[in-house]
């Protein structure tokens, strides 16, 4: 081989190897602050976690101690209610879209799902205030849940539609040929086969909204007491973190770090759950 081309080749290989090293370096460099954020939250939050943290209510301003019980319960209720509101509309819309791959109405609905994906959370808060808080005359957990469910819909619908679309036509035709009515075909054949995708879509959408603060600012409002009433104001973890973070009190900062850690663990658990569901319940055709 020509001597020059060997040198030329080695130079090219050197460049390729050094680029690989650079990319690796940049990747690690990028990950460092991100991982640092995670570690920082864990470190600050662990210090705040104890039994009274979970069971007590916040103390008056300036007094130490207290816990996040009302915010924790409030978050569970608001998120749970939002999920209940979003599931029927989300799953049924996804079914509609997967049953009508063509069709003008389906196309418009798909467009709307895209629009919902990109909507800023503060705009959802404005809208929920206008639709629910003003007419009802009071802030409420319910209005917060409605705002959150609006944000859940696009993720749920998209993920479910993706899985439902993969259902092969021959299975559907077999079911209908056996005389199974259409609705039973959908509910008892199509849905169970696509369960992993549908469920993971639901869980992912929950993971998306558990930490949302902006929609709750003008809807759920906050409540220093433990409350189970969905038409009254309710506290929640992200609201607590926001209010305490910008305050000057160190004891409140402590509580906020603990709440942040709880929130992160919640999201992590939901992500893990999604992975497990996809691995175990995926149906391959």
């Amino acid at each position, binding site marked *: 081989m020509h001597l020059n081309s060997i040198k030329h080749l080695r130079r090219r290989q050197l460049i390729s190897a050094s*680029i690989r090293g650079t990319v690796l370096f940049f990747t690690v460099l990028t990950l460092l602050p991100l991982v640092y954020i995670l570690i920082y939250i864990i470190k600050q939050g662990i210090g705040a976690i104890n039994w009274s943290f979970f069971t007590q209510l916040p103390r008056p301003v300036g007094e130490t101690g207290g816990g996040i019980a009302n915010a924790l319960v409030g978050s569970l209720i608001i998120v749970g209610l939002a999920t209940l509101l979003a599931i029927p509309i989300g799953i049924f819309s996804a079914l509609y879209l997967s049953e009508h791959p063509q069709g003008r109405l389906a196309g418009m609905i798909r467009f709307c799902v895209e629009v919902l994906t990109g909507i800023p959370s503060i705009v959802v808060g*404005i809208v929920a205030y206008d639709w629910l808080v003003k007419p009802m005359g009071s802030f409420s957990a319910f209005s917060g849940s409605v705002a959150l469910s609006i944000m859940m819909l696009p993720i749920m619908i998209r993920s479910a539609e993706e899985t439902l679309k993969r259902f092969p036509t021959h299975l559907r035709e077999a079911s209908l040929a056996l005389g199974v009515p259409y609705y039973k075909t959908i509910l008892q054949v199509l849905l169970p086969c696509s369960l992993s995708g549908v469920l993971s879509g639901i869980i992912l959408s929950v993971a998306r909204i558990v930490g949302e603060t902006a929609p709750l600012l003008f809807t759920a409002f906050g409540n220093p007491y433990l409350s189970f009433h969905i038409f009254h104001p309710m506290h929640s973890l992200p609201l607590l973190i926001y209010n305490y*973070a910008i305050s000057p009190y160190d004891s409140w900062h402590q509580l906020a770090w603990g709440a942040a850690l709880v929130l992160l663990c919640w999201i992590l658990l939901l992500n893990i759950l999604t992975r497990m569901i996809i691995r175990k319940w995926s149906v391959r055709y």
Partner: protein
Amino acid sequence: MPEPLLTHTSDKQLSSASSSAEASRSDSRSRRLASRISHAERKDQLFRQALLIAGLIVLCLVIAIFLTLIVGSIPSFRATGIHFFWGKVWDPVTEVFGALPFLAGTLLTSFLALFISLPFSLSIAIFLGEYFPPGKGKNYIAGVIREAVELIAGIPSVIYGFWGLFVLVPLVRQLEMKWNVLPYGVGILTASLILALMIIPYAASLGREIINMVPAELKEAAYSLGATRWEVIRHVVLPYARTGIFAGILLSLGRALGETMAVTMVIGNTSVLPKNIFSPGNTLASVIANEFTEAASKVYLSALIELGLVLFLVTTIIHLIGKRIIKQFST
């Protein structure tokens, strides 16, 4: 179990159909059958309508959101008109509302964040999409990195803001003291930095998927011609993925424009045109978050809703354009 649709009637039975008992029995059987079929048909019809209604609810939801914002903006539009968009003064006291400070704040922070984050998200995308793609079982560490990126992408905005207040702001403050600038710590720069940190995992995930989509045949063809790894990336993968990456940039921009909580906590909440990147400012989203619960006058509230409308339109258009490009890219 599906019901049998046909009862088996033998020829002999058919021939003795003249017997009225036989006739009436087969009549009632066929009537029961007919009612069972129409019952199922009705359920089918109801079911189909339920699906349609669910879809229509989604449609009406989006229309209603759009209408709410427009109707809510009307008082402000009537009061200020088009000057709203280049008005420099936001003064709730004298009811002079101009959106320019917030447009400037939003665009400054988002573009700066995009600019800062680009090299980093691109490198992670190339790392995870090209060097260590999923499913090859190649590297355990790469899998861990991928999981970590997904998890970090899921951290809520308010927690980023919380961390930013306690770690990033003091850092920026020290930087400002060294450069003899007012050591607020909060401001446009801090908000851009935090936005950049938030966009990186999101953009990296998008980029990874796009780079993964480059057809293997193209790459293999280049390798078979003797190209090195880097040359394949530079001359095949990146040019091919160029539109997809651009769309990813657009989507990240859309995400940055709409970010509320983290920005509100570190931008300094000052409704004036920022003079430089160290000044405090406000974005469309942060001013709404701060002032919505106290906008007591009709025009004030309407001005805030008009800001929300602008935010909604800008983020939606950018998001849709990005999605359209990706869809074209992946087919």
